[in-house]
């Protein structure tokens, strides 16, 4: 499956490429932030009221803000200084932005990774079967793919969310339950429906790539030989077709993690997510407080950009090293 040759390519490409290293560093740090959010957070992300005495939210540490206040019918300006207590400031209702940033990383990556996994699990078998057997099954898949392509992925995702609702799952947080982070939320809200929806929107890319690989491998001599020796279709699929199509699927999956992170942030920006601990949702909150409390919308956006750049850089690295020859159309998605 992953031969020594591939490993060697990956390593040498990684050594040569500054960007690949940057990608790994970016993704790893965001991954760690999300993973250990309860430990790294300074405040419970839901806790409100971290404002100064006059009720104004704090700017990031080191900055200060002039806040207009109504007093006896007059507008007066109060200066609010950032505090080290709230490194990245607080939002409109006084929640700690740094802590929410960490939890937002968790949501983004969780949705990105599990959405990609689910889409792979849905698309790859369909694509392999269609490509391997060809004929009607294959025609059917291609027509379905045509239909899915005509849907803008964000539009389809929104329509699905509109129809299915914003179901979430509460997952107990082991770090908090084990007592390592007192005062943090004991269950994490996992936007399960978002994961299902992004998988429904993106599975067809995996099906297309798997189909192309299966079609190519089907005609290889060694597959024909295995067939003539009496190997069953199932065995051939498992032993030959699947392992050989792994490389392009891995590259596609990486690109799709980036696309899904962007899609999730769009959904939550538009209020179709189900959890409030999401970068997109936080940007939506900050939109209403422009331009004065600019940091509320700015900071989570930087999180999205860094995470997506990290994933894209890793995607470029894998693509250069593995040279899977897939079309660029699966990449990107709605920004």
């Amino acid at each position: 499956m992953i031969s020594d040759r591939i490993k060697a390519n990956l390593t040498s490409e990684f050594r040569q490429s500054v960007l690949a290293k940057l990608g790994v560093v970016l993704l790893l740090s965001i991954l760690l932030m999300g993973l250990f959010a309860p430990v790294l957070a300074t405040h419970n992300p839901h806790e409100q009221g971290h404002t100064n005495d006059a009720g104004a939210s704090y700017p990031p540490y080191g900055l200060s803000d002039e806040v207009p206040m109504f007093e006896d019918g007059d507008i007066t300006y109060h200066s609010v200084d950032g505090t080290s207590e709230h490194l990245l400031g607080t939002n409109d209702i006084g929640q700690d932005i740094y802590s929410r940033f960490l939890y937002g990383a968790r949501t983004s990556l969780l949705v990105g990774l599990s959405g990609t996994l689910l889409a792979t699990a849905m698309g790859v078998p369909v694509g392999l079967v269609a490509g391997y057997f060809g004929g009607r099954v294959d025609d059917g898949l291609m027509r379905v793919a045509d239909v899915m392509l005509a849907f803008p992925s964000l539009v389809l995702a929104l329509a699905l969310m509109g129809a299915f609702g914003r179901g979430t799952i509460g997952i107990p947080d082991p770090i908090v339950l084990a007592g390592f982070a007192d005062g943090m939320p004991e269950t994490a809200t996992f936007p399960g429906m978002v994961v299902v929806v992004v998988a429904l929107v993106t599975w067809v890319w995996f099906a297309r790539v798997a189909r192309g690989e299966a079609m190519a491998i089907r005609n290889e001599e060694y597959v024909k030989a295995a067939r003539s020796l009496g190997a069953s279709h199932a065995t051939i699929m498992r032993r030959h077709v699947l392992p050989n199509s792994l490389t392009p699927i891995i590259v596609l999956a990486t690109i799709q993690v980036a696309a899904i992170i962007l899609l999730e942030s769009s959904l939550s920006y538009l209020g179709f997510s189900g959890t409030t601990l999401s970068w997109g949702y936080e940007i939506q909150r900050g939109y209403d407080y422009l331009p004065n409390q600019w940091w509320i919308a700015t900071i989570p956006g930087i999180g999205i950009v860094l995470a997506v750049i990290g994933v894209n850089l890793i995607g470029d690295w894998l693509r250069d090293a593995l040279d899977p020859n897939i079309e660029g159309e699966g990449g990107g998605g709605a920004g």
Partner: protein
Amino acid sequence: MLSTRTSRAKAAEVLADMTEEILRVEGLKTRFFTDEGQVNAVDGVDIAIERGDTYGIVGESGSGKSVTARSIIDLIESPGEITDGRILYRNQEFADGIRDDNPDAVDGAWVDLRGVSSSVRRSLRGSNFSMIFQDPQSSFNPTITVGEQIAEAVEVQRRASANPRSTRARSKEYTLTSLALGTILPSKRYVTPASRERAIELLELVGIPDPVERADEYPHEYSGGMLQRAMIAQALAGEPDVLVADEPTTALDVTIQAQILDLLDDLQEELGMTILLITHNLGVVARMCDRVGVMYAGEIVERGTLEDVFDDHVHPYTRGLLGSVPDLEGASDRLQPIPGNVPSLLDHEMNRRCHFADRCPKAMEACLEHPSEHSARGSDHHAARCVLTRTEYDEARALADGYFDEADRPAGDKHVGPDERDETLDEDRQHPPAETTGGEHQ
């Protein structure tokens, strides 16, 4: 066929004082600076070509013959670079035109092309030198009609002769603005109706039937032979002094090959062109050339008249090449490949010995020194880069069989096949494959 050529070469010798050299290459070195290291694709080549002659450069692929041709016509691109040598071109009108700007590069009617600016060199392309390529299908732009592409070449020449030589290099290039205007206004287009007419005439000249219709067709609608004719038409558009033909028949069927060679022959007679023919096919050389240079590992190892090289060769490599071609006279149609591989041209893998020694059946101790060129058989037009020009082969001083197997391995890993390579090399020490010669760079 051989006999007519030989007699012609003899006639050329007789009339030696009436012929004149048109192109002289001296000590040409072209290097490619790749990630794997410096590739010495052309390593000190001397060529002298007389007006109206056909000069053949023959060698295996990767010997640097194609790079030599491209160096002459200034088509070497990064990471390649001509690092040394002179390329002298004799043209009185050209020399007069650029003398004031380039006093150092001009000597009488001779101009050293390495000493003039790239725009001047560019101005020679198409009008003084032109080139035909191995694979016509990939050497035409697939999305533009053949007629239009030939008309472009005509236009290059038409515009060039409209400007006097002295101002040509400085005259404005066709700008992006003109190109943009040309998409809207037909009168601003680069190619004029007159050039289109001429393109059709040229197609007719090279024997393409229905040239008016065929001019509007795309390259993929042509057969290989027809498209090679069209490429020759394109090369003739500028009425060049020197036509460089890089493997002009390699991609074609045998019957078509003969037609294309006939065409080149006829055109040369008619137009008095000089042809530099690059080929690995000795049959083509025998059929076309007056003089021949045999290339190996970036050097010309033997040169002389066709007769010298075919019937009176000195270098064992020439002997080997001739042995590896089906004999035209039919004495033997078995192809005898020369044992061993074309050597690596990577600078750090090249030895200071004779590059052919490891494959040479007559390798001697003297061959461990790099040989310089000496005249062969006492002739002034026949020379070889081989110790055998001066000494006879002596079995007593021969190198033992398998001498290079041991000597070379630690230095270069040259004989490791690509498959073994992956197993044996760790990723820190990535050597390029032995075939990476840079010779057939593109």
